[in-house]
């Protein structure tokens, strides 16, 4: 836990200073998780704000501060899922969607200013993003939480409220779908 239980209880009681401290403590972690879940840098902050917005209005429903992190993860997953579903309707990326920084990065990449390491990273991001984009939002989020975020099956069990065996089956099927999607994308 990044914060004391007492701070959560104070925030539940309507203490905005306590809520601010919680946001500051978890902001970095949530931004990172969302960045890996949605892979669109310019929207990460917006989705993270949506997570904390939902947290603010649902904090009074949290029965025990012990399960706060699971609760926050669930809110993060739900917000990312909602975002990805909206994005599914407009999957094409247009230049007008890109931030100024991304346009500069794209220009720099085009003119060969990027070093090899950065190019390799970008290639990995694009590859995985493309792979995960070929499967459902549910598969994408589940695989990212397990394989990229490194959450254990026990953690996922708490977040999804699903038995471990059922999760294993879902994970296996999701992996198979990703591998099939990759197979389809290969020429010939």
């Amino acid at each position, binding site marked *: 836990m990044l914060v004391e239980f007492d701070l959560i209880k104070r925030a539940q009681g309507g203490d905005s200073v306590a809520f*601010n401290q919680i*946001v*500051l403590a978890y*902001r*970095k972690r949530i*931004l*990172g998780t969302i*960045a*890996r879940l949605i*892979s669109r*840098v310019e929207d*990460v*902050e917006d989705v*993270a*704000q949506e997570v*904390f*917005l939902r947290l*603010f*209005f649902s904090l009074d429903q949290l029965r025990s501060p012990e399960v706060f992190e699971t609760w926050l993860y669930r809110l993060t997953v739900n917000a990312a899922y909602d975002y990805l579903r909206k994005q599914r309707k407009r999957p094409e990326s247009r230049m007008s969607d890109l931030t100024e920084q991304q346009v500069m990065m794209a220009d720099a990449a085009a003119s060969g200013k990027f070093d090899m390491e950065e190019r*390799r*990273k*970008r*290639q*990995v*991001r*694009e*590859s*995985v993003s*493309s*792979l995960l984009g070929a499967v459902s939002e549910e598969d994408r989020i589940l*695989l*990212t939480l397990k*394989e*990229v*975020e*490194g959450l254990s099956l026990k953690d996922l069990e708490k977040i999804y409220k699903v038995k471990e065996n059922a999760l294993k089956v879902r994970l296996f099927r999701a*992996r198979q779908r*990703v*591998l099939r999607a*990759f197979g389809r*994308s*290969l*020429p010939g």
Partner: protein
Amino acid sequence: MPQDEFPEALKGDSELSDLFQKYRHACETPDASANFMPVLWEKIEARQSQLTLFGRSSKALVTCALAASLMMGIYVAMPGNHANPFYTASYVEVLAFDEALHAVEYSEPVHAESVMETQDADFELL
């Protein structure tokens, strides 16, 4: 999708896991902008005002519904509004009135034996 680095690597499950690990390292955690907290609080306040507006509208609606019910109750209870006499009578009174309309005179049922006996008596007399 760039094909130069991964087509061979993705033939198995373990290769997929490796790719996910590379992805984890390739995704840098973005820093929050200076506007993160102010914008968050703006959004919270906007949502709160929406909820407050909704709550006020709901309360106003409930109040209007109660007032309308009360007025209808008063209107129904006012004695001058009972123009139709049918509705002035109670259910028991209406039933009693209806019973009286359909009531028939009391008559003793005719018994076959008593008729026969009468006929026999008449025959003996003859």
